[in-house]
């Protein structure tokens, strides 16, 4: 049979394809029938948080920080409850990472504050002596791309039915909504309102001036995102 195949490249190719595609067929396809379902209490990201998520991706934070708490006591002691699949339902893409050059950030919003992040991003070793994380001063002066943040939210609302402006069941039995404006101008305004709340707790004058002038610095969006990780 193999000698026959070796003289017939087309069937040889088909043979290879069937053999390699088999694993995908068994492992990958069935999973899509059962799509990622959010946990009760899992909310989609706001426009500003999504913008901050893009800042996180742009600077490759995922190359050193994981977002996946494994079910071991030493991990839950260090980082909080272990990760559940539904918590990632609105993560496109997932940001689990593959290295922990720095600590896990899955629940960093539970134990770090805006003020801590502000100091830390400006000078990590000043906050955590011995840290090898680089300084990120440009986040304080670059303007975040809020439009793309809004564009992504609007896209996932339309294409994947991500529940913006809808009642989302919370753990305590109440309902909560994540607002998404219908226009990009509205999206910018929403993000600015959120940004002002974050900037209030910051002390960097450049950041405060930018927000006052109606612009969102990258650091503000990033901190909004990090604070949302719980």
């Amino acid at each position, binding site marked *: 049979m193999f*000698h026959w195949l070796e003289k017939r490249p087309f069937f040889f190719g088909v043979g290879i394809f069937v053999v390699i595609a088999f694993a995908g067929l068994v492992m990958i396809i069935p999973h899509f029938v059962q799509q990622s379902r959010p946990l009760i209490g899992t909310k989609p990201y706001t426009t500003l948080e999504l913008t901050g998520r893009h800042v996180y991706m742009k*600077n490759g934070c995922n190359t050193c920080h994981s977002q996946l708490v494994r079910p071991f006591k030493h991990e839950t002691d260090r980082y909080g409850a272990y990760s559940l*699949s539904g918590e990632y339902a609105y993560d496109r893409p997932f940001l689990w990472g593959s290295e922990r050059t720095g600590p896990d950030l899955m629940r960093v919003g539970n134990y770090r504050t805006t003020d801590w992040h502000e100091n830390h991003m400006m000078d990590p070793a000043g906050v955590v002596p011995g840290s090898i994380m680089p300084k990120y001063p440009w986040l304080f002066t670059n303007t975040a791309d809020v439009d793309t943040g809004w564009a992504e939210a609007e896209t996932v609302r339309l294409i994947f039915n991500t529940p913006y402006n809808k009642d989302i069941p919370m753990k305590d039995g109440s309902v909560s909504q994540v607002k998404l404006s219908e226009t990009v101008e509205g999206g910018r305004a929403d993000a600015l309102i959120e940004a002002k709340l974050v900037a209030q707790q910051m002390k960097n004058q450049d950041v405060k001036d930018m927000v006052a002038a109606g612009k969102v610095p990258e650091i503000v969006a990033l901190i909004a995102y990090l604070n949302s990780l719980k």
Partner: protein
Amino acid sequence: MENRPLEYDYTVAKMFMMSTLIFGFIGMLLGVLLALQLAWPEFNYFLGDTVAEYISFGRLRPIHTSGVIFGFTLSGIFAGWYYIGQRVLKVSMAESKLLMFVGKTHFWLYFIAMFLAVVSLFSGYNQTNEYSELEWPLDILVVLFWVLWGVSIGGLVGIRREKALYVSIWYFMATFLAVAMLFIMNNIVIPTYFVSGAGDIMHGVSVYSGTSGAMVQWWFGHNAVGFLLTVPLVGMIYYFLPKESGQAIYSYKLSLLSFWSLMFVYVWAGGHHLIYSTVPDWMQTMGSIFSVILILPSWGSAINMLLTMKGEWQQVTESPIIKFMILSSTFYMFATIEGPIQAIKSVNAIAHFTNWIVGHVHDGALGWVGFIIMASLYHMAPRIFKREIYSKALMNTQFWLQTLGVILYFTSMWIAGITQGMMWRAVDEFGNLAYSFIDSVDALHVYYIIRAVGGILYLAGFIIFIYNIIKTMSARPIEERELQNATPMAA
């Protein structure tokens, strides 16, 4: 009818050889810079504040990985294809104007795509899926040059004189098919600009969310690595080792068995990247089991290579190219036993997220991938340029520098990884965590330095390699005929 040997046309192979040198240098240089940044964070800002944003660790890391995988390795694979393809199929590229045009277009499209990839990654366009960081417009370019490669394979196979396909061709075909499937499946995104009418036109949002996304990504991530850093290179050593040593492949049956079992088993093993994550348990277990089974086909090929040298082991001392090839087969065996060990659940609990994984990748990438590609180029160069290799002494120097570099690299990363894994889980007598996270960072400083030294040695060897190839191209007299077996070289 005139009966003279075919004149093969190596124009395209030559172009890809050049890009192998360029991307190899860039990729490895960035690797060294990243290693220095981890040892001394000051290296993040050593070019001044204005460029600090573009050379910070997080920006550079995907350029290093993409540069080495899709720049250096893929160029080497394409160079190998445009050299081996003609020779084992017994047709010359010069026989078909169309295939020559396809080959050249393939190169230039590939080169442009890689250039734009570097530019876009520096500016922060990053999908963050590992080894799949490029945004959708660049993904389309990648698909285009991949299709051209497929046309080139199909075309040469279509007009072949030798009817039976040699083992190397099986591996090239498998690479083409598998990477096409994986790359397209993993990169399905919806460009947000076209749906919402706002924002960045480069940006796309993945159709896979959360856990599903992780599964598709590691189905891709593991196997893109497998089908670029393993499969075509096995195909290349199946050609170059017998040619260089003048020995026939030890066993046809063993190559048959290893090929088909590798095809079947490899793709299942992706799940080992997701052990103790939120993907279903059975999938983690499958990933773990199939990773262990994977030892068989991997060692099958490697043993086939080593046994090919049966009775001819003195060549290892005489020929630097044989040295490179034998050491690369050995590192292949080494990496393919280390990987399965790390895929065992209880070992993975310690190894995951640590530098042991980085060490594993690099004993594969530096020891196996780097060595076999450089050996292949050394074998091709005298035949392509019709000149002897410039210096055998430099080849030996390079060999020992790089071997030492790899050893420093993986030993330091093993110790670093296991140190991290053990410190994270250590508890005191009351059951409280014994160390804070920063303690585990401090402990690694010395290993990061040793690793950087290893990287510098490897890069130094690569610079010698570039010099030797360039000199071979220009400084030696042109030979009349091509030698059939071992590579001719000046002392």
